């Protein structure tokens, strides 16, 4: 029972390099395919419409996408753990209303109040998922109902729309820093943090591991439950914060915003190359996914004559095409 270790180590490794190269390319595509498609669209758009490539238009697109982007950032981490968060749309609305109420006490409370409540909702949902082993889909579906109910409960069945009182807070949504508006700057900052957490922090590694194999992670002695709890809290906070920003932008806490936002966020995340089953994906992809959706909308508006029904058909068809490409390029495709 003995084989020269030196000789044998070589043979196994031998096959590896080429194998890696192939995978690397596919990996690159599936992770950054969204970016590629986005660039492509931008080029096509500017060629097709002379009003598309303008600074004016593009900065619009940037601001418009920033709110969804912040929400999707949180959802990305939830999905990475193999979970899902359907409550973000309702929490987004709740965040806006609370911010408007809170703005009475200045811009700080206008932010802290919604973020705190968002965290609380995340805590409840995360607790049920992480410690009671309930299905995230159903827990957050209940969250979707409950949070929206809460919105109507504190606004007299949505019959009152609280206005934002703090000027400082309003300027947070509408003001500029250099050329960019605050929401964009804040969003980019959050994504920078998100990128570091995902790529370069232990927590990020555990998040991905949890999604890649929950039981294995537990047996490896990783703090699975805590991490799960964490991502739902983060998602809740980000959604509420985005809602607050949105309220600042429109200087009122509208009760009907954020309907269907959860699905937009999820598709953005998936278009961004994150596996819905968890374990693979990154935040840059999500950012690209969000702006893909945004640019499509903008292009539809550039045409300026499509009926709402045709618009739905177009966005639906596009979504399908993108996810198909995405999947075909993905290496971890099950066969």
């Amino acid at each position, binding site marked *: 029972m003995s084989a020269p270790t030196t000789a044998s180590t070589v043979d196994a490794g031998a096959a590896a390099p080429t194998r890696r190269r192939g995978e690397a390319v596919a990996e690159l595509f599936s992770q950054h395919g969204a970016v590629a498609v986005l660039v492509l669209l931008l080029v096509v758009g500017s060629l097709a419409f002379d009003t598309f490539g303008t600074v*004016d238009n593009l900065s619009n697109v940037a601001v418009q996408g920033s709110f969804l982007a912040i929400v999707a950032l949180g959802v990305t981490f939830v999905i990475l753990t193999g979970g899902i968060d359907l409550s973000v749309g309702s929490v987004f609305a709740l965040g806006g209303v609370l911010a408007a109420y809170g703005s009475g006490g200045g811009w700080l409370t206008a932010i802290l109040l919604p973020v705190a409540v968002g965290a609380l909702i995340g805590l409840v949902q995360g607790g049920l998922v992480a410690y009671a082993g309930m299905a995230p889909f159903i827990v957050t579906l209940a969250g979707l109902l409950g949070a929206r109910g809460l919105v109507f409960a504190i606004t007299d069945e949505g019959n009152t729309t609280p206005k934002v009182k703090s000027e400082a807070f309003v300027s947070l949504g509408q003001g500029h820093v250099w050329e960019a508006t605050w929401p964009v700057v804040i969003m980019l900052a959050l994504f920078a943090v998100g990128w570091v957490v995902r790529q370069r922090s232990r927590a990020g590694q555990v998040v991905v591991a949890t999604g890649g194999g929950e039981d294995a992670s537990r047996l490896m002695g990783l703090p699975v439950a805590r991490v799960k709890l964490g991502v739902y809290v983060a998602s809740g906070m980000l959604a509420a914060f985005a809602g607050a920003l949105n309220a600042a932008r429109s200087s009122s806490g509208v009760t009907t915003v954020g309907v269907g936002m959860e699905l937009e966020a999820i598709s953005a995340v998936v278009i961004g190359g994150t596996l819905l089953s968890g374990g693979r994906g990154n935040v840059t992809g999500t950012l690209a996914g969000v702006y893909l959706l945004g640019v499509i909308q903008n292009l539809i508006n550039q045409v300026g004559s499509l009926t*709402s029904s045709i618009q739905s058909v177009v966005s639906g068809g596009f979504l399908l095409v993108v996810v198909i490409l995405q999947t075909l390029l993905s290496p971890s495709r099950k066969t």
Partner: protein
Amino acid sequence: GKAEDTGGGSSDSSAAQQVVEPADQNGAQCDLTQYGGGVKKLDLKDATVGFSQSEKEDNPFRIAETKSIGDAAKKAGVKKYIHTNAQTQLSKQISDIQDMLAQGVDALIVAPLNSDGLEPALNAAKAKGVPVLTVDRKLTSGACDTYVSFLGSNFTEQGQRAADQLIKGTGGKAKVAILLGASGNNVTTERTKGFVDEIKAKGSGIDIVAQQTGEFARDKGQQVTEQLLQSNPDITAIYAENDEMGLGALAAIQGSGKQAGKDVQIYSVDGTRNAVQEIVNGDYNGVVESNPRFGPLAFQTLEQFLSGEKVYENIVIKDTEYDPDNAEDGLSSAF
């Protein structure tokens, strides 16, 4: 929330032109110099006009509205006409308006999704010196400041008139169930307020036994009515905040073996052909109209304004109403 107005039949915009309430003709006025930072004179012939629709054109009211404005644009012979649809998403409507501004529109017609929350878009328009005319839903922000003028119906008054019809029709004695529109929707709020206040004021013998949302949808209206009729059989009248729910209620009443229009009376707001037809059939008791054909009046107002004339800040449409006496003749003008 679904569109507040739905029905069937044609939407040909030549029928039943809108006429203005004479009462409101002596309200405040606005002109080029007063609006925003001031607007330059302009002939519609060489103007690009944009229309931001709030809800999907999947129901007669929206279809009629969009069509009417599109036709009027053609008639006015504008240089370019573009239209967008916010698909009941406030954030999208803000984006839509900003996109159109980026495309360099000279004037905007906006059907606001919500009375609040459009500030960023409107401010952008103001900054660009682009006049904004709002139709069908009134903004809470100031006329001749964030927008030139509002032209549309008074939803609160529609509610009042429905109440008056009901009081008259039931001889002042009834148990009423209200089918509310979608929660958080201004139209719901105002049509409820108008109705309830009027009942309080004039209908001592009438008590409201239930207020449940039918989300402006026929099937939901039917289901809710079925439940309510069963648990309180003594209901003698239904007030539906749009025709679709009213027609749903009709189906429910017939299903329960009661006689619609007699045992249980139905009143609703809209003026769609289907509902008016039912009055003719004697199964329906009253419909208050909410006229969607804003096109001609809107462009007339724009023309005046851009040519430097003064225009009224509040141009309230005089809505007709249908009851068993006039339904026959009114049928043709219903949309």
